[in-house]
């Protein structure tokens, strides 16, 4: 046989314990024994994340992504841009999540028929065919509890009786004939701060990455424009295909016919020229003494540049050194857990009260005889600040054209910690 047949040949789903629980082939069947090479790599990897994304085998290549503790392993036979496959696999996961709410082994097993129907539509001969969620939803209705019950009683189907018109239209991302009694458009401006803070509290690197997620439920074919007070802040942007690029280039206005439902309109990067405000600080005192089996552990959190907003849902986690046996700590608020196996310490702080700063103090016990760990642990912090876009980005106005009704519009801002690390 020729070495032809590009793109994705087969897909295997592997759970955390290393079992294949679903397989799908788009061309001739590839034996699942091909996954042995994957399992071998899995065994070698110390952490689940350490499995290399691309694994060569004598006749095939395995490209995998790990999400929700499931490996999606695609089998490739010949040269293909690896990102092509990776991006597609992530799109598959997104679709599952969209359909089943969660993308878990149980959910996939429960909905195996829908999964199969979806995969069938998403790839033709290994080449992506329909990956827009709006089109897929017209082809295959997402399962709901009600529909499942009705289907079992009446024997009706998940498969849309109507054929998708979106696939053929000028705006393939939007289904046609959308109707709502309440017309609403909500936009969430969500910014994440990625930062590395060094021992002394100074910022090594910090950047802001933002997205605008939208939930648009509007009747007909609305044409929206969204403008910003300060579009100059946006340094690097990537758009949903619906956004008219030229309009953005010329006027810095987002003009688009939205998909129906939830979608990510825009992701952006705030130019690195702007100084990034760091909303929390950490005071830490973690020390291990040579020869002693005890170590000191003290953490205090406090708000820094929060523009007067409250810092909420704070969660501190830290991977303690391997030599640590146990931790005996007392938090001033919230709860903490320490897993003696993985050595993962996590402290659910909740809201930071500026008048009474949360702290976690106590001692950690080391293995007797073990030498002093040479690195202090890194502290990862998660938090949320409502009603604030830390970069200062503000939406100016949202207008709708093309339809006559008046929609309800809403814009929400939020700042979150992305990869926010404090080295100690």
């Amino acid at each position, binding site marked *: 046989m020729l070495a*032809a047949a590009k793109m994705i040949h087969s897909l295997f789903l592997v759970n955390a314990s290393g079992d294949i629980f679903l397989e799908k082939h788009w061309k001739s069947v590839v034996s699942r024994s091909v996954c042995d090479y994957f399992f071998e790599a899995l065994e070698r990897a110390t952490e689940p994340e350490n499995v290399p994304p691309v694994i060569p085998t004598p006749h095939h290549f395995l490209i995998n992504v790990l999400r929700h503790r499931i490996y999606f392993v695609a089998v490739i036979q010949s040269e293909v841009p690896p990102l092509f496959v990776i991006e597609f696999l992530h799109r598959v996961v997104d679709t599952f999540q969209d359909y089943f709410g969660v993308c878990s082994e149980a959910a996939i097993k429960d909905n195996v028929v829908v999964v199969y129907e979806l995969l069938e539509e998403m790839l033709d001969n290994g080449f992506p065919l329909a990956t827009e969620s709006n089109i897929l939803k017209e082809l295959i209705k997402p399962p709901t509890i009600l529909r499942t019950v009705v289907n079992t009683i009446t024997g009706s189907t998940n498969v849309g009786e109507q054929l998708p018109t979106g696939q053929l239209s000028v705006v393939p991302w939007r289904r046609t004939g959308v109707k709502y009694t309440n017309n609403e458009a909500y936009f969430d401006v969500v910014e994440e701060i990625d930062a590395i803070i060094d021992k002394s509290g100074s910022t090594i690197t910090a950047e802001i990455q933002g997205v605008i997620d939208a939930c648009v439920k509007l009747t007909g074919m609305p044409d929206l424009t969204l403008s910003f007070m300060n579009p100059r802040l946006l340094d690097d942007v*990537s758009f949903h295909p619906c956004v008219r690029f030229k309009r953005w280039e010329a006027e810095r206005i987002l003009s688009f016919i939205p998909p129906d439902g939830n979608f990510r309109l825009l992701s952006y990067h705030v130019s690195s020229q702007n100084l990034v405000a760091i909303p929390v600080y950490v005071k830490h005192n973690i020390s291990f003494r040579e020869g002693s089996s005890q170590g000191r552990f003290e953490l205090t959190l406090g708000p820094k540049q929060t523009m007067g907003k409250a810092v909420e849902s704070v969660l501190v986690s830290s991977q303690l050194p391997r030599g640590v046996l146990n931790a005996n700590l007392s938090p001033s608020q919230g709860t903490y857990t320490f897993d003696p196996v993985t050595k993962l310490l996590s402290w659910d702080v909740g809201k930071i009260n500026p008048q009474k700063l949360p702290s976690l103090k106590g001692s950690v016990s080391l293995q007797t005889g073990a030498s002093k760990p040479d690195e202090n642990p890194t502290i990862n912090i998660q938090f949320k600040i409502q009603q604030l876009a830390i970069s200062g980005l503000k939406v100016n106005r949202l207008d709708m054209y093309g339809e006559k009704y008046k929609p309800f519009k809403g814009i929400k801002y939020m700042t979150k910690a992305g990869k926010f690390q404090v080295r100690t």
Partner: protein
Amino acid sequence: MLGMSANSVSYNEQGSVESGVDAAQENSSIPGSFSSDLKEMLESNKESLKLEAMKRIVGLIAKGKNASELFPAVVKNVASKNIELKKLVYVYLVRYAEEQQDLALLSISTFQRALKDPNQLIRASALRVLSSIRVPIIVPIMMLAIKEAATDLSPYVRKTAAHAIQKLYSLDPDQKEHLIEVIEKLLKDKSTLVAGSVVMAFEEVCPDRIDLIHKNYRKLCNLLVDVEEWGQVVIIHMLTRYARTQFVSPWREDAMFDENNEKAFYDSEEERKVEQTKPYIMDPDHRLLLRNTKPLLQSRNTAVVMAVSQLYWHLAPKHELSIITKSLVRLLRSHREVQYVVLQNIATMSIQRKGMFEPFMKSFYVRSTDATHIKTLKLEILTNLANEANISTILREFQTYVKSQDKAFAAATIQAIGRCATNISEVTDTCLNGLVLLLSNRDETVVAESVVVIKKLLQTQPSQHSDIIKHMAKLFDNITVPMARASILWLMGEYCEHVPKIAPDVLRKMAKTFTNEEDIVKLQIVNLAAKLYLTNSKQTKLLTQYILNLGKYDQNYDIRDRTRFIRQLIVPNEKSGALSKYARRILMAPKPAPVLQSAFKDRDRFQLGTLSHTLNSQASGYLELSDWPAVAPDQSVRNVEVVKEAGAPALRKSKTAKSNEKFYSDSEEEEEEEEEGSSSEGSSSSSSEESVSESESEENSDDSNKSSSSQSEKSSSESDSEKKKKTLKNKKLQQQKPDILIITYLPPQIMQKTLLLIIMTKYILIHIVLSISTQFFVNCMCSLLHLCVFLACQFDVVSWHVHVSLQASSPVFVPETSHELLHRMTGKGLSAQYRFTRQPCIYGNSMVSLQLTLSNSSDQALENIHISEKSSTGQNIHRFNAIERLEPQASVTVSMGVDFNDSTQAANFQLCTKEDEFSVSIQPAVGELLLPITMSEADFTKEQGKLMGMNESSATITMTPENVSSQSVNRKVVSVANIGVIPSSQENIYRFAGKTVSSGSLVLVSVALKDPDAVITINTEKTVIGSMLLRQFKTALTNSCP
């Protein structure tokens, strides 16, 4: 020896598992009882039971269970009405057809039937499944289906056809030649839906046939932004390869003004000017590609961004590369797997061009939560980016990494420090000192790596050893890790001449502890002893002998062996042969310094963004990127002769060159317009030529003036007087309705722009009412129609029905004659006349378009003129909107459509006013049941060949002398029937083609002159129409007067 590489990043290492990949498939069949249950369910009458059974079967397939024994029961349901059931059967069929070939054949007829379905989605899905059934025996059926689908009206079906090409090719590579033909045809397709898929097929089947791309290159570049994202990736990769074979290198002069003058070239306008003064001028097509891919850097699809980045890397002048940096860095925010691939590519780029990524250095800082392979890649990039200016920052960062809990990563950091130390001489000492400090680390990996790196560093700098070796000797007592101890001993021995005092002392200490050391350390003690014996035998002779004696009785045979060997080599005695003379040269031979370089050094031999690049080994199916040609191949191969499509004889060769220049004018938007403009210009001019040939009326010469002026669109606009004339007519003809946009006669350019604007603003429903009254405007109409055809393809407005391979063309001749529908006497003052507009009907694609002129010759206003709902005959009629009031002596023109169903049977209906009803009937002439089409002469002959025998009717006539000229033949024929003129290479043969309005059957007419006789041949499936036409042609051509 010390050749340890604890760097465990060995993805590329091929697993050594021997179990054959395609070995026995898990064949756990389903239990028998279960299977018979399912069979029963499938054979039941209840849809719901069948569906349930299929769902369970799909569940089994998903688990990898073998359900093939149910094949006969499943395949029966292939024609089910239930869509979900049918789809699940498809899933099953595709999975098992290969194993059950004979039974699979039972389903084929169902698909063949579905291929003819009026619904495009059903046609597409049938083709999808049919082509997925890997049964060699149906190859001919597949081939036929693909060929047919490739000319389907629906772009979606054509897209499916492109996918099917690859499937058929992998099933039967012998079909290659035929498939290439289909690919060639589909490459010409203007739909964005098709473009990605057909290029994919091209890459699969015939990637070496670069010549097929030439003519489609510019179109692909221009369509790219609107193609779906997966198609974009494929097209960009293909165009990268294409460009490397067609354009000359933009890098030639670069070396001179490369990094230094970068600033001066940021401004693109300026840049072009500067470039023009240089000997290198970028091919405009090359520039077009770069410009049209740039916006895609903003795509949300990481594969697209990567594809554009690699395109720029391989094709853009070096100073333009910086624009991809930001986008690549943005991708690092994406999933772990994406990061992995992107970082690899950045690593390769950063070796050659540090400057690109240096400003983003901090984005490559490692986080403790990164996966090991991500960390290692970031480290690699940081090392590549290190230079004198930033090295201190980088080293400070490295210090944190060395302490990492991930020891493999810490070891990799030490290697990275070593590389920095060799590359940047300013920091060599600092690095060495830092590394020496690490020797006291508790972790064996770290120490071992440090020693290895120190060892390498010392070897590259043989002059300043002694200090560090002394320092290491001092630390020696505190170092416990055997590997590190062994390494230090090796260094002592190797450079014992630089530390003449310390080395013997170390040996003395070691002699004391020899028995307690680890084996690797013992071996190195023996080594050290031997080397010292050779260089400094006076001080160490006894020590050496003592150690050799200890070694002789060691428990480890390796050490005993080594001892015996060394003793024979260095201690002279009778038995030792010639070898001992060379002892010194053997032991003290200069060891080559290891090279410290990036693992990504030679990665750029692979095209970036490919699988081969990621793996650093060539994957099957990898297509090599060729080197730039020294001399650019002929540029004109990419020129597209728009004219050909319109079916007119080739004309105005010079035009293409001119349009070239226009293509690459400033903004893209304009460019698109212009392209459209030029394509319609082409057609308008072509048809104008035809009309010139057919009559020399004043109007027509006027017309050709206009079209030639429209050609030089930009520079010269039409003369004012002409415009006025048109606007006047516009007013007269325009009919206003609130919800329908009516575009009548505007100058073509304006019309095109308006249309474009409308479509740009994405009005989905465009009602374009086309009506025509005088031949004067034929050309306007042509260009508009062509524009619509083009736009329809472009924007997939499927409602516009145009057969693509048999491109519909505009009517060559529209008769002025009106026929009476209702005489004013019978109509009590209301009179009606109708004429055939010969345009495709907008109300339905099987309708004939008619224009009705209603006049009121009474002295009272007539109210509510309309066509009655009930029609006496079966024809489908699209009525005109009721006319509320017609004033006395006024008249109004309306259009309507009638589906005559390809028969000359009259359409009878009631024309009503408020008070009266009049029965009227329209009797179509057979020639009005046709629509003109264009095709190439070759296609014509081919199609004619298919319509022989029963389908052919011919007659010989004697021509009247005045009819012999080509113009008159053409004029006669096209006045009788609405058909298009086909260019003919033979002088005495005239060809015409059309299709029937309702069924779309081809009607081919040819007139061969053999003075004084002529043979008229008509080929069509519709034999009745054929013979009727023949009769009419006979009369027309033999009558002396029209």
